């Protein structure tokens, strides 16, 4: 079967993140599928999947034919579209449209519009609803991702599923989670970690040799993350599964280095030792391992959201750090500068790792290794929800604070897994969790001074873990969106 998967990048990396993951999941299910991906922004695709050449009109990547939107590619006319997956009603390239609606072609064509992820109940009403086109030979349907029964569920590609299983297995072993984090921390460091200590950029070692181990010293910590590295390789370490990473893309910079900013008090000693070692030239690997060990012992908090005032978030994290050490992993992108500002202003109360743009698979692992995540958009929300760890979602800003409708809908999905203030039901009180989500999203603009009223302590409490774990188990039990999609295609075709 040949499937044409269409994606237009509206902003950031979320749209292409979903399309890329869907392509992977479909290929996982059936390696004989001929997938043709039509993408209007190959640079964004390259950021998440470095094998994609952003300058190439038509190319083979992982067995898929990747085409620039409206590419003049003869193969399309030779093998006209039969099954078309549109991501988020993105429309179709002009030439593709002509071929799809060719009245001389007697074969039926099937189009499925895969809509945005929403927890709202209407998702089930729209799921698999027949749609309409202007031709009797072109049949169309709606397909709704979602969190509940009656929707298409969430995409769970094989790599993510395996990483999730590995994270769960590690949890069951003594020291397993530390091992998992140490390996991942080493990986992150190898992608160019530089210790900033108390803000001072350490002298970096030379490249470790292999690709991705450049570890440029990055003169000014933080800045290096956007500017270091080899030109034209921006995608290699870029980004966030769905959306992160735009800072690198927007700045046109190359995000190669991750920077650890050690906390001013709690991690000072460790940072000093690590910094000293980091000053040694040609000792990247030792330094990376030290970084890994230090980070692995801490709880991980990943932060990837929109701009806002993180003052209270940092305050709560600092309090949690005093009880049990933690480290924050700040993804590249819009929230990082705001988070850094709050962290600086609070006196650097805990270590902070600035992540470079990461390939989708590595970002998945970061989320799975985190004890708590602040995520935004839909792709990373899905990953965080599936991770089984507490998270806080920053919804995409909409007119008249409509994002709150989306947030409340998600809260409705989470509520059954929690208890109530009066002790009714099992599990911890949902009220403070709900308040945190609503306060975090009650905003009219994304800007450094926005929001800042949320208290995230309830989400950092160990008791919050179980309801999120149970929520994730139910999501996984509902199955993979790609599998549901293939079943549906089998039914209609």
């Amino acid at each position, binding site marked *: 079967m040949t499937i044409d998967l269409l994606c237009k990048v*509206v902003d950031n990396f979320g749209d292409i993140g979903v399309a890329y993951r869907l392509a992977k999941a479909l290929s996982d299910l059936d390696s004989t599928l001929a997938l043709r991906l039509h993408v209007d922004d190959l640079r964004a695709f390259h950021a998440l999947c470095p094998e994609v050449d952003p300058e190439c009109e038509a190319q083979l990547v992982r067995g898929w034919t990747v085409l620039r939107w409206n590419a003049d590619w003869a193969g399309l006319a030779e093998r006209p579209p039969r099954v078309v997956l*549109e991501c*988020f*009603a*993105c*429309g*179709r390239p002009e030439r593709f449209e002509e071929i799809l609606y060719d009245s001389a072609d007697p074969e039926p064509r099937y189009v499925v*519009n895969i*809509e*945005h992820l*929403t927890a*709202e109940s*209407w998702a089930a*009403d*729209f799921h698999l*609803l*027949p*749609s*309409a*086109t*202007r*031709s*009797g030979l*072109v*049949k*169309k*349907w*709606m397909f709704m991702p979602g969190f509940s029964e009656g929707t298409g569920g969430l995409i769970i590609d094989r790599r993510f599923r395996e990483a999730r299983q590995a994270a769960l297995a590690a949890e069951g072993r003594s020291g397993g989670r530390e091992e998992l984090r140490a390996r991942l921390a080493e990986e992150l460091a190898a992608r160019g970690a530089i210790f900033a200590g108390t803000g001072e950029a350490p002298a970096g070692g030379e490249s470790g040799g292999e690709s991705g181990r450049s570890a440029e010293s990055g003169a000014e910590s933080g800045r290096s993350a956007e500017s270091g590295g080899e030109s034209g390789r921006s995608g290699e370490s870029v980004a966030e599964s769905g959306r992160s990473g735009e800072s690198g893309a927007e700045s046109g910079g190359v995000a190669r280095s991750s920077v650890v900013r050690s906390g001013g008090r709690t991690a000072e000693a460790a940072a000093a030792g690590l910094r000293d070692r980091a000053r040694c030239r040609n000792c990247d690997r030792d330094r990376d391992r030290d970084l890994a060990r230090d980070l692995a012992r801490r709880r991980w908090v990943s932060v990837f959201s929109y701009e806002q005032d993180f003052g209270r978030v940092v305050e709560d994290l600092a309090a949690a750090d005093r009880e049990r050490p933690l480290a924050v992993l700040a993804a590249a992108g819009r929230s990082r500068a705001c988070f850094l500002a709050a962290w600086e202003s609070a006196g650097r109360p805990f270590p902070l790792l600035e992540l470079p743009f990461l390939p989708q698979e590595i970002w998945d692992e970061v989320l799975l290794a985190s004890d708590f995540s602040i995520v935004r958009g839909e792709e990373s929300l899905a990953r965080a929800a599936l991770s089984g760890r507490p998270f806080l979602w920053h919804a*995409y800003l*909409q007119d008249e604070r*409509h994002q709150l409708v989306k947030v409340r809908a998600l809260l409705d999905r989470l509520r059954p897994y929690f208890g109530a203030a009066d002790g009714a039901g099992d599990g911890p009180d949902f009220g403070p969790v709900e308040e945190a989500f609503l306060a975090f999203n009650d905003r009219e603009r994304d800007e450094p001074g926005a929001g800042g009223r949320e208290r995230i302590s309830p989400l950092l409490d160990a008791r919050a873990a179980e309801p999120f774990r149970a929520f994730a188990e139910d999501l996984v039990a509902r199955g993979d969106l790609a599998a549901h999609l293939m079943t549906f295609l089998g039914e209609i075709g």
Partner: protein
Amino acid sequence: MLMTGDIRGGTVFKAGNDVVVVQRMLGIKGGRNGQVKRLRVKSILTGQTSELGLDMGEKFEDVSLDYHTMKLSYVDGETWVFMDQESFEQYELTKDDLGDAAGYMTPEDDFEVEVAFYEGKPVSVTLPTAIVRTITYCEPGIKGDTSGKSTKPATLDTGIEVAVPLFCDIGTKIMFDTRDGSFIERAK
């Protein structure tokens, strides 16, 4: 070409090999890239009704229709009789044909409607975009709340229910949008 955004109650368009009329907008939901609509349509060719979901990425072929300006003359059970304002001829549509529009008009109304004809047969009615109706029942109004952001259900003199701002009371005349039933303003 007709875009999804142009489609509303009473719209007639070609869906595949069929010609359908929109009887009811069942839901308009928004995401960050646009809206999706769920509607109930009736096939003009077969008379069958079905539900459709439409996204903003689709275009449809216009259907050649004749429009006549008419007024609702009287209602006889499920049959609604309209009078052409030029020829004074009368045409019948069923309540089912009218869909949502049936809930917005009575024979006492002054406003005119556009009746669409497909191959000589009346198939749908398009109302004026904004019309005025009177609230016959709602919870007591709350003075001072003029923002209009919070709403409550209200029954209109035609019997249908719409959402109105909290300050509205029984007897209040309201202007609302017939495309989606949304409140526009309090009428004088």
